């Protein structure tokens, strides 16, 4: 368990997620092995029983998320971990958890896709799948760590937010940060603020239901429910982890990034600073709901906005949708299963600045 003093560990992102779960009092994990998330299951099988918890290996990912939802309804803080193909299978029941308001945490370690893709290589192409993968109008929370420490901090946040908002929360990492070993500082007992759930099951259904949990097909009941489910999250974005900002307020180039690409961007900002260039970085911690207001405000002060991501521009589209003039928004993207490097970003910055002046 967490100590009085902050313990410092050398952990991979996957391991950091598991320790976060244990410290956040998660006591149930159901999963199905898949690269690059498998170590999370392996470690849960080993560690959870030592902390009075349970590991169960389900027959597939549909069963894994279902068991997680069942355990959560039974009063255990519960999570699962997977990657693209597994996330695809979980989608129906993720929507169920949103509709039935069941707290649960899903760690999705992104790998190169679609389909089996390249099982061991990174990508950041599940941006839209996490947001809209489950059918229907809904809102859910997706957090995007950019390293070991963030995996730890944001996974703890995920358990609390799941409980607070009574909703599924996805922690979206990638194959690189999942395996990258870094220094991670554990929280002390005092620093761990935990929201507590309830053991009672009562009446639960994924059908449109009234306030008593009885199914209903009355249009007013449906509209009220769907509005409330979205509003309870979208109306309280101030409670979600905020983006981090590095660099001058009125930059020539503002980089927007997340996950492993944000790590390269941090280094690129540092390199640009060495050359006296005004470059800033907005590193997302909450991906969904998309921090529109913040991006609109900060983006307005930048000459050019550069979105760095390992996909064909999924976040870039959202940035444009925030109301930043489209000609200002550029992307640096990679879809060859390798990561974006700091020097690639710096080169792009230099090209942009040359063009701007």
């Amino acid at each position, binding site marked *: 368990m967490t100590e009085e003093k902050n313990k410092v560990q050398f952990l991979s992102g996957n391991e950091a997620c598991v320790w976060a779960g244990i410290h956040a009092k998660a006591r149930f994990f159901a999963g199905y092995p898949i690269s690059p998330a498998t170590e999370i299951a392996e470690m849960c099988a080993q560690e959870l029983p030592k902390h009075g918890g349970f590991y169960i290996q389900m027959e597939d990912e549909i069963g894994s998320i279902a068991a997680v939802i069942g355990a959560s309804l*039974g009063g255990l803080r519960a999570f699962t971990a997977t990657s693209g193909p597994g996330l695809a299978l979980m989608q129906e029941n993720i929507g169920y958890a949103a509709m039935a308001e069941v707290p649960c945490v899903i760690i999705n370690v992104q790998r190169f896709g679609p389909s089996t893709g390249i099982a061991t290589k990174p990508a950041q192409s599940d941006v839209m799948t996490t947001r809209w993968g489950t059918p229907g109008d809904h809102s859910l929370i997706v957090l995007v760590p950019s390293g070991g420490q963030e995996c730890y901090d944001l996974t703890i946040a995920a358990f609390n937010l799941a409980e607070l908002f009574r909703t599924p929360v996805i922690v979206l990492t990638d194959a690189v940060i999942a395996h990258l070993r870094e220094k991670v500082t554990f929280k002390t007992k005092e620093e761990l603020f935990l929201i507590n759930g309830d053991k009672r099951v009562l009446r639960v259904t994924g059908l449109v239901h009234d306030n008593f949990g009885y199914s209903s097909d009355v249009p007013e009941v449906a509209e009220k429910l769907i509005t409330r489910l979205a509003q309870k999250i979208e109306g309280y974005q101030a409670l979600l982890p905020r983006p981090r900002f590095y660099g001058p307020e009125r930059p020539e180039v503002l980089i927007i990034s997340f996950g492993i690409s944000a790590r390269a961007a941090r280094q690129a900002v540092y390199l640009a600073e060495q050359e006296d260039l005004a470059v800033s970085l907005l590193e997302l911690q909450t991906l969904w709901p998309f921090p529109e207001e913040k991006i609109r405000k900060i983006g307005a002060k930048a000459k050019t906005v550069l979105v760095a991501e390992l996909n064909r521009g999924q976040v870039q589209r959202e940035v444009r949708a925030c109301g930043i003039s489209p000609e200002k928004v550029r992307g640096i993207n990679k879809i060859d299963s390798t990561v974006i490097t700091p020097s690639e970003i710096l080169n792009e910055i230099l090209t942009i600045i040359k063009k701007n002046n």
Partner: protein
Amino acid sequence: MVIPDYKKYLAGERLPHIWCAGCGNGVILKALLIVLAELNFKHEEILLATGIGCICRAGDYVSFQRFQGTHGRTLAFVTGLKIARPDLKVFCLIGDGDCAAIGMGHLIHAARRNLDVAVLVANNLNYGMTGGQFSPLTPSKSLTSTSRTGKTETPLDICRLAEAAGANYVARTSVFHHGELRKFIREAISKKGFSLVEILTPCPTYYGRYNKIGGPGEMLTWFRDKTVPLNKYLQMNPEEQKDYFWRGKLVERDTLDFYTQGEKMKRPDD
């Protein structure tokens, strides 16, 4: 027989129910509630878990804890729930499509783990909710909305499958045989570990109409005539067997259930 006060488990204010006139689902629900009353469970001790389908609406008519999952996944949800709440008595009420088609994988694994849960399969021989398509349990040659000239596939014996997968209790009956129905439900609920009762039940709206069996009454006598006790069925030759459903108790054993076995392996010295 004196019928105990089962109405305390009924959410009377939700009636009338959505089921068609002559549907067997109400008979199954009532049989379950009578058994609960006989065993005198407290509301907070029990939970009815359902999936999606006509029979799965039963959860809307009970006054105790109710969980309705997604189509086919009930047993996977319940696997997690029972680990968190081993004290909770859980019974699942699911259709033949829900359990034998989309949910087949979870059914096998729940039986294999010997999860402590009673599964009542309402086998109306077709998909009622979606309008009468054939299911894996629909007999060959049956007319359904997706087999207008007769089902060509071979049906599955879900009871034998549950037996092979490791269930502690398996039985089959029909809503016509209501004494036996209550007895089997009572035994299934009282049994520690995985139990399954397949209940043949009329869907006059689709299966009965398509196959020209007649109305609700004729469907009941059809089940009377189409079912034979298991020992008699075993004496029939394979060709003859094709025209009948066996009925009776197939399995009764006491293998350690999932949770108890897990706890025992954690503390081998006990």
